[in-house]
């Protein structure tokens, strides 16, 4: 995970011809292939990696290898990767990206309610509708730049949220949102016995899981997760290709100097709009997958805090880097789902080895930071990361890697 922002376009020596680039696969350089392989391994082995602690042990609380959270990791990873294509490359800070995710979700659930419970058409619909919506919002918002652009996107997203919550209730279900009901009868292949239809892929339900017990460890392999995981791999691969393509250079040129682009015969606005729509389609994919994994949509998915969350994920992980958004998304979703579930009882279990008095002291020290205090922990960690790791978590990883390397050469 070395510097990913400025990949050298060719190999270092001018004599080595670029066409001879070797060692990689899928048309990637060796370094990018390694990165791709790492992400592939992380996604495929997540059920093991995220469940390092045996069931029933005190540390099992920190296991994250259950389907819902694993799905969320990859879905928000996709969302952040897409956001990074816009923000990391062109520098345009959209503060309304959650609206595109929300629109994608609504499109997907309507596809499942009306057309088929198969997830593929739902996800395709999500991408298409979110892309179209992004095109409209982007076409208008990109008339301005800088913070004026940010506020325009925010305004569109907040309007979408407010209307979805209230006057659009017939379409969006309002506060309660939309779920699949037993009264829904999709055109193709709905359940006939009056039960509630489930999202599936040609009959295989998203909820299907395969469990593997090894000693006191238990690993869950969930179909839905692997479908989302494959989507993440595709999304990540495309993002590498975009980063390394002439188009990617153009997007970075937008961030660097729009005037020069104009006088070089290029239209920065169309490049930015394309990046905006691509990232909106990523958001739509994420929204569609969310519905595929868990068939429900609520309007708060589009609230400004949700847009803010993806901004934070990207910056926290490292904007403009390939891995950063994935790391940032994982970090925040882990905090939200794991730290918030720790309660006083669990603390007492952890510190039970201490004498009674010391146990109570430890519990009362830690207690404000867990459970209902998880926001506090999150806020503190934001500040620490920004203060000490200006380039986000990726930079932290690089520093550690550099230290190791130095130690190696020293030793």
């Amino acid at each position, binding site marked *: 995970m070395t510097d990913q922002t400025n990949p050298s376009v060719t190999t270092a020596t001018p004599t080595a011809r670029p066409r001879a680039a070797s060692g990689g696969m899928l048309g990637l350089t060796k370094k990018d292939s390694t990165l791709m392989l790492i992400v592939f391994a992380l996604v495929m082995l997540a059920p093991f990696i995220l469940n390092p602690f045996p069931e029933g042990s005190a540390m099992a609380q920190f296991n994250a290898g259950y389907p819902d959270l694993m799905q969320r990791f990859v879905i928000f990873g996709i969302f952040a990767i897409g956001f990074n294509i816009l923000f990391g490359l062109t520098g345009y800070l959209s503060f309304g990206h959650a609206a595109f995710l929300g629109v994608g979700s609504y499109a997907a659930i309507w596809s499942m309610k009306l057309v088929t419970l198969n997830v593929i058409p739902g996800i395709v619909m999500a991408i298409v509708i979110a892309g179209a919506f992004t095109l409209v919002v982007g076409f208008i918002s990109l008339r301005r730049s800088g913070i004026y652009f940010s506020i325009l996107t925010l305004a569109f997203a907040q309007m979408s949220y407010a209307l979805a919550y209230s006057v659009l*209730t017939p379409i969006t279900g309002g506060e309660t*949102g939309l*779920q699949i009901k037993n009264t829904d009868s999709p055109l193709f292949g709905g359940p006939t016995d009056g039960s*509630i239809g489930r999202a599936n892929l040609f009959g295989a339900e998203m909820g299907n*899981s395969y469990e*593997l017990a*090894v000693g006191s460890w238990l690993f869950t392999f969930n179909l839905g997760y692997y479908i989302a995981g494959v989507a993440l791999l595709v999304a990540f691969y495309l993002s590498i290709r975009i980063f390394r393509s002439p188009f990617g250079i153009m997007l970075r040129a937008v961030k660097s100097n729009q005037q020069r682009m104009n006088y070089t015969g290029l239209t920065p606005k169309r490049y930015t709009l394309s990046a905006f729509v691509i990232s909106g389609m990523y958001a739509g994919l994420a929204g569609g997958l969310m519905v595929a994994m868990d068939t429900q949509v609520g309007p708060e998915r589009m609230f400004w805090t949700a847009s803010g969350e993806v901004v934070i994920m990207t910056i926290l992980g490292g904007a403009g880097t390939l891995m950063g958004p994935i790391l940032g998304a994982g970090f925040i979703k882990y905090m*939200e789902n794991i730290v918030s579930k720790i*309660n006083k009882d669990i603390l007492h279990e952890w510190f039970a080895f201490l004498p009674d008095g010391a146990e109570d002291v430890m519990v009362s020290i830690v207690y404000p930071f867990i459970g209902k205090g998880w926001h506090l922990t999150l806020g503190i960690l934001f500040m620490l990361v920004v203060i000490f790791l200006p380039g986000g978590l990726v930079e932290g990883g690089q520093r550690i890697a550099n230290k190791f390397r130095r130690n190696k050469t020293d030793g």
Partner: protein
Amino acid sequence: MSKSNFTRRGVIKTGAVGGAALALPQYLRADGHAGFTNAPGDSEVVLGFNVPQTGPYADEGADELRAYELAVEHLNGGGDGGMLNTFSSKVLDGTGILGREVKYVTGDTQTKSDAARASARSMIEKDGAIMITGGSSSGVAVAVQALCQEAGVIFMAGLTHSNDTTGKDRKANGFRHFFNSYMTGAALAPVLAAQYGTDRKAYHLTADYNWGYTTEEAIVSSTEAMGWETVNTVKTPLTQTDFSSYIAPVLNSGADVLVLNHYGGNMVNSLTNAVQFGLREAQANGKNFEIVVPLYSRLMARGAGENVKGIFGSTNWHWSLQDEGSQAFVRSFGTKYGFPPSQAAHTTYVQTLLYADAVTRAGSFAPCAVAEALEGYEFDGLGNGKTLYRADDHQCFKDVLVVKGKENPTSEFDLLEIVEVTPVDQVMYAPDHPQMGGADASLGECNNGA
């Protein structure tokens, strides 16, 4: 790799070494033997308490959590037993549920349906919870109820007042003890008519989302049945904090009653604004101007301070009730925490007990068996008098309290006084009532999961 019939918890208990695998044809994990999701092992059963711990309803969530902890303590034989002693059913004996010790996990709904479902799924998928309960808003209740239906676990709703929860969005695996908008209207309207006369003109401010709509509909139809006239109904954005521009036109609209279909922070702010604008002292149509808050919550009433004095509303339960059950609950809660419980705490405590009782009576944790035990079940001694869990829509029918803000509170908890206990017959309605989704609403089939 061999096929295993153990559930996750079973695996742990037996400590099976080596590879054991289980391919699941159904949603989530299930027990091959028992045929339902998250069948508990022999010594423990895990319940999932899913309450708002962050966001505007965090205090209500905290109170619900206290009540859950108390309920677990009582079920496991700790403390003074609370309402176990007054409950009409006597099958619970303080040895947990069906001899298994009750354990619990907690989560944060953030009062967002996505977060609430994420939290509930983690309880079901990771912690093996057999029942999910909690929540402090109808949106969350409907979302989590639908999830539990899919996953094949029982959902015991917490604080949710919208008709939809057991109306158009009712589910076979979901149960609600709390009352609803329709009952509020039916209980409140006669009291209002008696207090303020039948010749009144009402102006409604309604929170612009599902709960607001059902409450407005219920109050409008029940007050109009008493002879009131509805001058106007105005929707206010949920995110509104300053209601001045909605309150200001009220006095000049020809109305003489203002109904605030608001809850939580919305209620505190709109009521405070209304009082600031002098609505409480004003005269209109030759009568005193009146304000009504259909759904009261004591925790929120505290936020509104002096402004609640003399204002009518309804509530599911109040700690000042003198029946044996309420007294027992207030005693054990107050002794443990130092202050009286809220209605949210009461309903969640009762729901936990009712679930445990139903499992015990059914002799099984299987959701369908539990649902069958709860359906049509009549009980008493849990604070609201004789109560029926109706089979048609899984809604509890019981007396409803009409309350008003107390003029001379003796403490910070003593904010509401009970004006009338509306008997259950008066708030009864047909399961296919139009406000409840009409004939289309159906529970569907109960789902055991695996």
